[in-house]
């Protein structure tokens, strides 16, 4: 129990720290990735230009009066002041381009997030200022492994923290519903999965049919937007409740040895433990961003596990009407054994000791 608790706290701390580090890294000093991303955006922007990485200097840059540059010149997060001659283009990314007396740019002068200022200099080409890039940095598959990993980890941790908050809320305010759903999953797993898949398939047609039915009357037409919002919230709530129930069961399984018989189980600990198990899957998938195809397989595995959990949970929520009623017993399900008649169990002749019939405790007066 302590071990699991320590693991859970460690995961929470790790999650918080990794989020902090991720946020900090976005605000920290310019990294080579940021310069590359800016140059890429500049290249793909219809109003940008193509610059070579070697021509970009971080911070302010000055072209002295005695200088004559044959190529392009650029600054990144700083002004570009030109008193000499530039045969190519001049660009300041997140800064001003200032043409001082004697400054001469034979190509274009471009400022991103600043202005092109003529303070005595000349530009033969176009003077252009854009307030920002029209296209963002490369996304998705074109992210570097480090960026992809940071994004995956941040997303997983953020989702985890949100689910933990929801788990706390559910354990306090809807504990009975959660227990009912979890119990249904435990006894009717396959049935819950089938119901979950059917629910996912039928969600959109069901909503469309409802909308059509509402559209029959004028009042119903007005209600359609509200119905859409209510339906979306209902589906998301059902999915969340079901997933939390699955997480509870996962936590039960992991903490089985730590629970004392007869004591009520610590619901919150089990819930967070189960959620942490799913988090670990996603963290492993995110951390494997460097591993190419293996990382993709791990993320697919994490997705499948999560999807199955959510689907089974959704099915159980449907079966129990949101945890408000217990699932109907299957016709072939055997009745549970009763402790009251266990002593009557036939015993083999070989001499296994029979159970002792429970007898009432002797009264004090008889002693």
């Amino acid at each position, binding site marked *: 129990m302590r071990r699991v608790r320590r693991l859970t706290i460690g995961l929470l701390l790790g999650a918080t720290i990794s989020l902090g580090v991720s946020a900090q890294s976005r605000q920290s000093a310019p990294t080579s990735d940021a310069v590359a991303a800016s140059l890429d955006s500049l290249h793909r922007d219809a109003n940008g230009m193509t610059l070579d990485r070697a021509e970009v200097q971080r911070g302010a840059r000055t072209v002295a009066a005695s200088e004559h540059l044959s190529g392009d010149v650029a600054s990144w997060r700083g002004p570009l002041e030109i008193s000499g001659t530039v045969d190519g283009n001049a660009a300041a990314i997140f800064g001003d381009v200032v043409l001082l007396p004697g400054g001469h740019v034979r190509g274009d002068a471009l400022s991103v997030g600043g202005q092109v200022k003529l303070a005595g200099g*000349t530009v033969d080409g176009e*003077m252009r200022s854009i307030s*920002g890039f029209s296209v963002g940095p490369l996304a998705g598959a074109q992210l570097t492994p480090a960026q992809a990993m940071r994004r995956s980890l941040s997303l997983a941790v953020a989702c985890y923290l949100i689910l933990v908050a929801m788990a706390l809320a559910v354990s306090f305010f809807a504990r009975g519903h959660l227990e009912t759903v979890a119990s249904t999953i435990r006894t009717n797993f396959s049935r819950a999965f089938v119901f979950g898949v059917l629910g996912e398939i039928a969600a959109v047609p069901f909503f469309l049919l409802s909308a059509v039915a509402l559209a029959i009357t004028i009042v119903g037409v007005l209600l359609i937007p509200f119905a859409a919002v209510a339906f979306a919230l209902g589906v998301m709530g059902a999915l969340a409740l079901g997933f939390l129930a699955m997480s509870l069961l996962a936590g039960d399984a992991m903490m089985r040895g730590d629970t004392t018989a007869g004591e009520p189980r610590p619901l919150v600990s089990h819930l967070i433990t189960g959620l942490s198990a799913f988090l670990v899957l996603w963290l492993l998938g995110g951390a494997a961003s460097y591993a190419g195809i293996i990382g993709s397989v791990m993320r697919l595995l994490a997705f499948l596990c999560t*999807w199955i959990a959510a689907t089974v949970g959704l099915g159980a929520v449907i079966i129990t009407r949101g945890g408000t009623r217990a699932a109907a017993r299957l016709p072939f399900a055997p009745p549970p054994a009763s402790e009251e008649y266990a002593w009557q169990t036939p015993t083999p002749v070989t001499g296994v000791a029979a159970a002792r019939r429970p007898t009432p405790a002797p009264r004090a007066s008889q002693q």
Partner: protein
Amino acid sequence: MKSILLAVLALFAAGGPGDGAQSWRTLTASRPRGNADSLRVILRYDAGRLTVGAAAAPLLYDARARFDGNQQRVSRSYDAVTHTLHVGIDSAMQGSVHSDRRPRESQARLDLGLATGMPVDIDLDLGATRATLDLGSLWVSALHVSSGATETDVTFGSANPQPMRDLLVDAGVGSITIHQLGNARAQHASIASTVGALDLDLDGSWTGEMPITLRVALGSATLRVPRDAGVALRLARRIANVDADGFVAHDGVYYSAGYEQAKRHIVVDGSATLASVDVVWKE
């Protein structure tokens, strides 16, 4: 599940600025004249306000755009060989759905200044815009305006240094007003209006004959004619009304009184379908 979690995240983030937030961008682009002796401008602008006028003296063009980066794209390019400037603002954004799209676009604008003292060909393709073209200071050698749902106002405040080669206006839904069209000194003007109002002021510094092809459908056209000009109307009318008091019909052509004696003449050809055409004399 990932999508569910994203949806939950979206719910939590609903209170803050999301993708639907406005993202206003600005673009300014100007170019010195250099050795350019003419300019051709091809402009596509589909939503917002547009003004076209004269640029400051040393500049070939000066464009200033304000647009919502989430919904619109702006591009400009200049071909130094053909002296052609392309400017385009379009709202064909990928997969963005915003219920309040129109109000945002109405706040977008483009101000385009063009060189004075050199012949300029202007080709405008306008969408849902409010366009104000002040061409008085420019030497417009050709003007093509094709518009969708617009409110367009064109002014030729002073006479063109040289006669305009071609003037073509094709207005869709909306209104178009042209002031002092005579100053354009167009060798031929073709003006069409479909569903909307057309107001043509034919005043200005021009001599001789001004040929105009006019096509009006499902709307109205008002021709404001200087008193010293003679007008000949040869319009094919299809369920249309031409209000031309004092005109005399001869071989299917309506001539204003004193047409032969007038120093300058306006000859209007074309058609009017389900429309009304009024001729108003200016003093």
